[in-house]
């Protein structure tokens, strides 16, 4: 997984001049340094935790976390909860993609619609979605549906905003060519605006994955029957640091995998932007 800047960032930032006093590292060197940093951290944590330099029931240590991970997988506890979280995520995320792209496109095409909804979206973008959990629970119950709606809300807004900006920033020249060769309004959208906005839409999806996983877990912690967030809540009331670290590991892996997956899809559907 490379951590190159995204396309938007790369376009905005002036290309950095190579600095004489700080030579750029080869990619493999960079990987080694990165892994090295993690290793040092793990070793220090192991020593501090296992030697009880800090109370180990509070901070635990790597080998104990691994043992807990094994136990939670073996008992089926992890999967039983993870599968629920994944279902909630999928049920909320895919509708958010479809409706988010559609509304973002509509915003880019219609000034009137934009003026009507823009303030609302600006407010919602900064609002912590978790504040809606009590209402969602009243409306949709404590189960799967209220969490899926939570995912939908958190993912929807960045997708709308990125799609809108992406469509608006499609350069004029290709659209002019489409018109000159007789494209209809729909053809201009399908063959011009949407493919042109695709890199921005994919960046929106990456943003949405992060945001929606955070709100999903938080919502599960607040009230739920099953799910990763539910487990976090249970183990935190029973002072089990090792299990909580296992869950943190699982949650961040989820987000990481989501982002990697989207980058893969992006390289496939928009190779012209990934390569640039």
């Amino acid at each position, binding site marked *: 997984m490379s951590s190159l800047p995204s396309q938007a960032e790369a376009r905005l930032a002036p290309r950095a001049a190579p600095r004489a006093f700080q030579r750029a590292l080869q990619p493999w060197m960079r990987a080694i340094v990165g892994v090295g940093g993690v290793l040092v951290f793990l070793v220090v944590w192991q020593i501090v935790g296992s030697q009880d330099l800090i109370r180990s029931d509070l901070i635990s240590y790597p080998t104990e976390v691994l043992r807990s991970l094994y136990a939670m997988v073996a008992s089926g506890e992890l999967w039983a909860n993870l599968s629920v979280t994944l279902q909630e995520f999928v049920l909320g995320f895919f509708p958010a993609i479809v409706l988010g792209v559609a509304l973002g496109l509509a915003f880019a095409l219609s000034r009137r619609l934009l003026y009507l909804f823009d303030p609302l979206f600006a407010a919602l973008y900064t609002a912590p979605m978790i504040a809606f959990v009590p209402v969602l629970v009243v409306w949709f119950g404590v189960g799967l549906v209220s969490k899926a709606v939570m995912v939908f809300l958190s993912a929807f807004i960045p997708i709308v905003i990125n799609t809108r900006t992406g469509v608006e920033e499609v350069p004029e020249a290709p659209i002019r*060519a489409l018109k*000159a060769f007789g494209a209809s309004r729909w053809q201009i959208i399908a063959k011009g605006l949407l493919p042109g906005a695709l890199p921005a839409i994919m960046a929106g999806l990456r943003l949405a994955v992060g945001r929606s996983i955070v709100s999903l877990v938080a919502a599960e912690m607040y009230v739920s029957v099953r799910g990763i967030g539910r487990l976090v809540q249970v183990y935190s009331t029973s002072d089990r640091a090792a299990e909580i670290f296992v869950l943190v590991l699982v949650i961040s892996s989820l987000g990481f995998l989501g982002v990697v997956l989207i980058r893969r899809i992006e390289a496939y559907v928009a*190779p012209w932007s990934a390569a640039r």
Partner: protein
Amino acid sequence: MSQLALDRLHLAYENQATGASFLALSEVSFKVERGEFVTIVGPSGCGKSTLLMLIAALLKPTSGALSLNDRPISQPGSDRALVFQDFALLPWRTVLANVELGLELKGVPKDKRREAARRYVQMVGLRAFENSFPHQLSGGMRQRVGIARALSVEPEVLLMDEPFGALDAQIRQVMASELLRIWERDRKTILFVTHDIDEAVYLADRIIVMSASPGRIVKEIKVDFPRPRELAIRNTPEFTLYRKQIWDLLEEQIRNSGSWEQGDVEPAVAS
């Protein structure tokens, strides 16, 4: 019978803020014969590019009439194809897919248009690059794609809007001779806008010289060099005479109009 006829075209723009009216084109009339290569030269802001937009029907004239094969021109169509100064390729499409665009919009089935696109990509010498994206190509290569895209719809008239204006001087000359080589095959009617006098003389059967603000036709000049033409004709005394004749006309126009003081006033293409 002429293939393309422009009859007393006027085009006026209203300035939205001031309400003042700006006359971009005035009394523009000319005819183009089938298979003729006509170049249009004029100072910046003389509306020569605007003229192509009118023929492509991307703009509507304030008054006057345009016709192609005696039928009035009312909307964009594949009987006319544009080549743009900035190439206007679709950056998300490969060379082949870019060339396919015109046929795709006409509803030609996938394998047929792919086959046609391959033929034209080959014709402009980009066979090896058919799966490259525009950003991987040089400017000259990008415009070859633009030309292949325009030719692929088999238009009756090719409208070229300063197609080599964004290229450096050497590439420009090579592209011009390449264009003639391609044109010699089927002698499609070409209307070619440029502000490069040498290019205008080298390419044309006939040159239309325009003035600025408002854009009017100052003179039509027949070019009598035999074809096929070598790049070396640029060094002949006859060529020098053409060059001087056009330059004198343009210089007079530029001084009279004062457009060199006001700067460019070429209007944007209507959306």
